[in-house]
């Protein structure tokens, strides 16, 4: 009985001491963090590698020709839901969308609109943007995927 109890105490102590060390997984996580860009410039330099985190996958692309009808729909949505924080060609609360596809992949733009909360936590470029824009979070305006696609089309006309 007494020996068993002592054994239990030692066991518990061992368990706690194990918790204090760094596991392999943590080490890997740490290393991958190190590889992440530490400034917006660094992140933007690699923009072609970033597709964002969310419902849109890296294979998403847009056709060469701009769909003017879709863009017009997109403008209406943008004017109603986005202009409180974005101006077409100058920095405001958030970045300007003009020429956005020369700085971001289409999938990244879509994911930023559709899934901003997770983007600023996980996407290396979005993380840097949050810092560069004073910690002002991108609001999730609950656009549907179709609506976000229309907004993206509008951005291509700017």
């Amino acid at each position, binding site marked *: 009985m007494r020996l068993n109890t002592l054994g*239990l105490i030692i066991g518990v102590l061992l368990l706690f001491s194990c918790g204090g060390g760094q596991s392999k997984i943590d080490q890997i996580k740490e290393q991958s963090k190190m590889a992440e860009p530490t400034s917006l410039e660094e992140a933007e330099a690699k923009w072609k590698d970033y597709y964002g985190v969310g419902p849109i996958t890296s294979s998403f692309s847009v056709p060469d020709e701009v769909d003017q009808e879709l863009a017009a729909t997109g403008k209406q949505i943008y004017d109603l839901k986005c*202009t409180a924080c974005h101006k077409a060609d100058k920095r405001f609360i958030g970045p300007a969308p003009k020429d956005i596809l020369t700085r971001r992949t289409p999938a990244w733009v879509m994911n930023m609109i559709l899934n901003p909360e997770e983007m600023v936590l996980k996407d290396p470029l979005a993380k840097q943007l949050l810092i560069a824009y004073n910690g002002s979070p991108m*609001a999730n305006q609950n656009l549907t995927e179709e609506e976000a696609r229309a907004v993206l089309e509008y951005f291509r006309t700017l």
Partner: protein
Amino acid sequence: MKSHIKYLTIFTIAVLMAFSCGQTGGTSGALGGDLASRSFVPPGEHDEFYAFISGGFSGQLAIHGLPSGRLFKVIPVFSVDAEKAYGFNEETKPMLETSYGSIPWDDSHHPDLSQTNGEVDGRWCFINANNTPRIARISLSTFETEEIIELPNSAGNHSSSFVTENTEYVVAGTRFGVPFPQRDISIDDYKGNFKGAISFISVDQETGRFNLEFQIMMPGFDYDLAHPGRAASHGWMFFSTYNTEEANTLLEVNASQNDKDFIAAINWKKAEEYIAQGNFTEMPSRYAHNVWDESTQMATSTMKTSVRVLDPEKCPGLVYFLPTPKSPHGCDVDPTGEYIIGSGKLAAAMTAHSFTKMLDAIENEKFDGDAYGIPIINYDDVVAGVVQQAGLGPLHTEFDDKGHGYTTFFISSEVVKWKVGTWEVVDRQPTYYSVGHLMIPGGNSQKPFGKYVVAMNKITKDRYLPTGPELCQSAQLYDISGEKMELLLDFPTVGEPHYAAGCPADLIKPNQMKFYPLEENNHPYATKTEADARVERDGNEVHIYMTTIRSHFAPDNIEGIKVGDKVYFHVTNLEQDYDVPHGISMIGANTSELLIMPGQTETFVWEPKQVGVWPFYCTDFCSALHQEMQGYVRVSPRSSNIGLSWSLDGE
């Protein structure tokens, strides 16, 4: 040294044994080791039931979770609430209008939930204002008060608000007999001249909108509580009465003379027939009907001018009296609809009337005289049984789904469990202290969820840390899933909890409104984009069309306001995400903040009295830049010719 180690080892073993004993403790008794876990909802998990607990003299409705007892929200209903701008912003002010003018407070007593086919359906909650008689409807999608209707000819709206089994009506009684209609007569002329109005308010099944369909002009007894018939007895409504003596002074003595008062059984299907036949009086009456419109996000108040009144003396078969000892308080109908329980608060026994026997007695005219033309059924021909000597001061009964009644006893501070049909007491548990109502989720329905009962107490004395002369109000949760009731939890409540209603959370959770779509905002002063933000002057009136989003207002610099102006801030929250309200308040404004849900527009009025530059800011912590969310208004002298201008970031 060696002996030290030995003692330390023994001590360690003892401690470990003590812990292991605690973990294997029994499943019953207040010292049961797992008692706490049975009302514990782990962080991040949801409660199984919603409880809607009346605020009593707070006038509000509190939303708790069961079994945890956690408080989620206090919905303002009959009293102003500066926290939520209820009764302070321009949109909700009409909700508190009455025929007496605007009233900032009331006393809310008995919530009840909408039903379909005799089961709780999670659409609406209803609650009564006791002092200035009104009934309110609360949406269980937005958890906001959507409608309030005043009840004319009523006074002390206590036997309310009870819902029939398809939400055909919300029914409301009156505690005070009053001159009907009101007139200038001697109080001593009470008998025969004072009447009690019972109101039937219809509910539109699509919109929930109320209409006061008719009132029944009952004798001037005090109508204390009520419940609807269900299943076989659907179409009937039962009201307990006291003061059948019709005393108008020292009621504590003079209204306690009769050995038996009555339960009034009202056949409302019959009432509908009389109305259809035109056998009613259209009586001039003034009463306010206040409706919240979700599309315009504004309340309107309309003054109604007449009500249809049925006189039972001229409507045979409409009302019967069931003699019931003695000053019965609770009037409760079991889930099958067969038994109507009168809890005679001045009697030791509770009386169970049989609906089947009542119908037979009516058919065979087994009557013992009448009161104001209303037949009194022979006591022996309607009573099914009596729960004898169960306790002192029975008040209210609810039922589980296994054939048991649970009755509170105010004087002996206990809940007593008894068997429907045999009327034998099977268990009793103390309450702390002086219990009033109790609630089992689904209690007023054919389908109670007999897992928990909540007892609502009038006195807490030593149960909590003291807070000066006024102590906290409290409810207690009992597990009733087993043979014996077990006290699991005490939890504080808002105001004085009278009655409550409850239902499984799954009935309500999936229907939650998360935000108001901007596209559907038809508020006349809505500003749907920052491009439309502006300031307009109309004489001394200034309208600011303002937007708010994390983390700025547009406009946030305004000039050209003058002393003596009446400035309306119409603020639209442009957010379209869950749980991102914004607030706003203005220094020196003689009103509350606004608390604006995403997609909503709200308005407050500011009448600047001094020249200067005055700040406003966001009052709801909305983001990391919340503290930056602010603006200025420049106020110039009346004689100034500075024109209106507004901007955000210089544009």
